[in-house]
């Protein structure tokens, strides 16, 4: 039973290496290889699902599964822990990336080096699982780097100029952030003598009392490095490029879960310094979150490229989550966690829809987009209503809980900021939605284009047959959003457990 924890990390790792073997040029026929890859990927995810399924009942009954790597004592060795919080995050991550994988079967087919894509997909899963499960700061850094490296590669897998640029920009800034994270870990080790979160937490209490500026420095380093990776506003610059230039399934993963992983790290790190310290920094974090909310929405408003718009919208949604973390009361934290879940479903769905729509219309310009099929358009509407926070969709519930928590904690202004941002986001999402309906305008433009004889814009994502592989994941996500909106108590129970058991 307890081996489940490590197996959650090892399964994707082994799948990645097996997939990597299929990427070596063989004399085997391409279709056979493709089938092998699909089989491997599906079985990898199936393994993860089975593992989560076996751990689920234990974790959800409030149990905490711990694991000592190599049997070393936690003071020396690496400890892993699966509690309700990490279980929730892991479930979201596996769910979303499982669905996205089906989408990318069809989507990434025309890209070269598909085997490499799958390999790094699973390496990314390894990184995520590792970050979620580890209780060791240095180990967290290593897994963050594994995650980061595979993400850089996945972004560049579009193999266009923009991909490389976006990837390198992310790489440079991400490495800078990792450096700061490592510095924070180093200082922490230097002053507490342990890298294990539980032991270091005991040590840090004394530091907070005796030497508050060191604690503040460590905390600032953590916030800046994790904040950069999750796109907090003055540090978000890499995000729109990376998220919009990556192939759509990768963008879906980046916005949907990779951002949340670093937010999860923040949830782990912020209460680490003890409640007293937390009280002091809470307004700062909350106002950083509010700045992120406002900045993200305002920047999204002027975007013409749909994926850039979605990326900036991710920034603002992350801001909402960080605001919730910053407020720090149980209810706000609950809302923030629920928003992580909801935003993962909604934003990945939006990016997948955007991928299909970009295919169908051959352009990323919002005014020239076409809706794909009515089903996709309907899903897009569902997702965007969710992100805007309109009932009866899941986004509303979590936003409301965060706002409620803000008002309860006397941060009325934060609730106002979040709601105003929802209003602005409503306007830019519906600018996209309304283009689906202005059919006549689109046809006119099409005719004009044909008359002039000019070619469609040379977009990296050229038209492709729309297959069920691409459609069904989108529908599943839309249905999940709707169900979570209609019956939020299912998600809220898990979130509540995560707050009480894991958020300590």
């Amino acid at each position, binding site marked *: 039973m307890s*081996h489940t924890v*490590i197996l959650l990390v*090892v399964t994707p*790792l*082994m799948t990645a*290496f*097996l997939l*990597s*073997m299929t*990427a*070596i*040029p063989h004399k085997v026929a391409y279709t056979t290889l493709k089938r092998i890859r699909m089989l491997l990927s599906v079985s990898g995810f199936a393994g993860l699902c089975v593992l989560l399924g076996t751990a689920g009942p234990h974790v959800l009954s409030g149990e905490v599964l711990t*694991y*000592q*790597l*190599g*049997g070393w004592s936690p003071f020396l060795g690496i400890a892993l822990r699966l509690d309700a919080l990490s279980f929730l995050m892991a479930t979201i991550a596996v769910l979303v990336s499982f669905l996205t994988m089906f989408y990318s079967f069809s989507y990434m087919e025309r890209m070269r080096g598909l085997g490499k894509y799958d390999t790094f997909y699973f390496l990314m899963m390894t990184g995520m699982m590792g970050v979620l499960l580890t209780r060791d700061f240095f180990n967290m850094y290593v897994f963050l780097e594994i995650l980061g490296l595979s993400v850089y590669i996945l972004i560049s897998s579009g193999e266009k100029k923009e991909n490389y640029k976006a990837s390198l920009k992310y790489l440079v800034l991400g490495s800078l952030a990792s450096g700061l994270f490592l510095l924070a870990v180093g200082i922490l080790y230097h002053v507490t003598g342990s890298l294990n979160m539980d032991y270091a937490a005991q040590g840090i209490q004394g530091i907070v009392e005796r030497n508050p500026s060191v604690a503040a420095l460590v905390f600032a380093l953590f916030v800046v490095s994790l904040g950069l990776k999750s796109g907090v506003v003055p540090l978000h610059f890499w995000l729109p490029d990376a998220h919009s230039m990556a192939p759509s399934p990768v963008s879906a993963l980046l916005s949907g879960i990779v951002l949340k992983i670093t937010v999860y790290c923040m949830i782990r790190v912020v209460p680490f310094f003890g409640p007293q310290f937390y009280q002091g920094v809470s307004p700062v974090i909350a106002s950083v979150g509010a700045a992120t909310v406002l900045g993200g929405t305002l920047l999204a408003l002027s975007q013409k490229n749909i994926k850039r718009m979605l990326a900036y919208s991710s920034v603002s949604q992350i801001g909402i989550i960080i605001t919730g973390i910053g407020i720090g009361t149980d209810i706000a934290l609950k809302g923030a966690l629920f928003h992580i879940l909801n935003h993962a479903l909604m934003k990945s769905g939006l990016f997948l829809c955007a991928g299909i729509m970009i295919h169908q219309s051959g352009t990323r310009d919002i005014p020239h987009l076409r809706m794909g099929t009515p089903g996709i358009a309907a899903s897009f509407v569902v997702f965007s209503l969710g992100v805007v926070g309109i009932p009866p969709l899941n986004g509303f519930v979590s936003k409301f809980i965060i706002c409620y928590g803000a008002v309860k904690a006397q941060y009325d202004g934060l609730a106002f900021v979040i709601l105003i941002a929802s209003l602005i986001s409503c306007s830019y999402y519906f600018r996209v939605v309304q283009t689906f309906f202005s059919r006549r305008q689109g046809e006119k433009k099409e005719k004009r284009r044909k008359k002039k004889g000019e070619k469609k814009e040379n977009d990296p994502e050229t038209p492709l047959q729309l297959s069920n592989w691409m459609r069904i994941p989108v529908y599943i996500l839309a249905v999940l959003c709707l169900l979570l909106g209609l019956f939020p108590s299912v998600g809220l129970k898990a979130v509540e457990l995560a707050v009480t058991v894991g958020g300590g």
Partner: protein
Amino acid sequence: MGMSIIVKTATRFLAPIMLLFGVYIILTGHVSPGGGFQGGVILGSVLLLFFIAFGMREGRFTENLASLIEDVSALLLVMVGLVGILVGKEFLSNFLVGSALDTGAGTIPLVNTLIGLKVGTAFIVLFYTFFKYMGRKP
């Protein structure tokens, strides 16, 4: 193609010694400074030396072979960890300690060897990739 005869001769002379040194570093990793990664890097740099001296060409040790070895050794590394679970201990636990196969450090030399292979071949793949890229006709 390649550099002067001095370099070529020196390379021919040095390469086996470097290989041997790499293996030494890997195998004694558990009792002295060194280990899988360091030894692997030395192993990998042998090929780099050849490339510099003789120019880039794909010999018997091809890129595909290298990546295959890399993947297999990585898989085996994970397997060694999993064996720890199979024998009833934790992942990556040193299950060989106290058994008949113990050489004094349990699984550590085994793990070091696998890491060395993995790192060495990874470097080889890396050099192949870069050199192929630089050497190709635009």
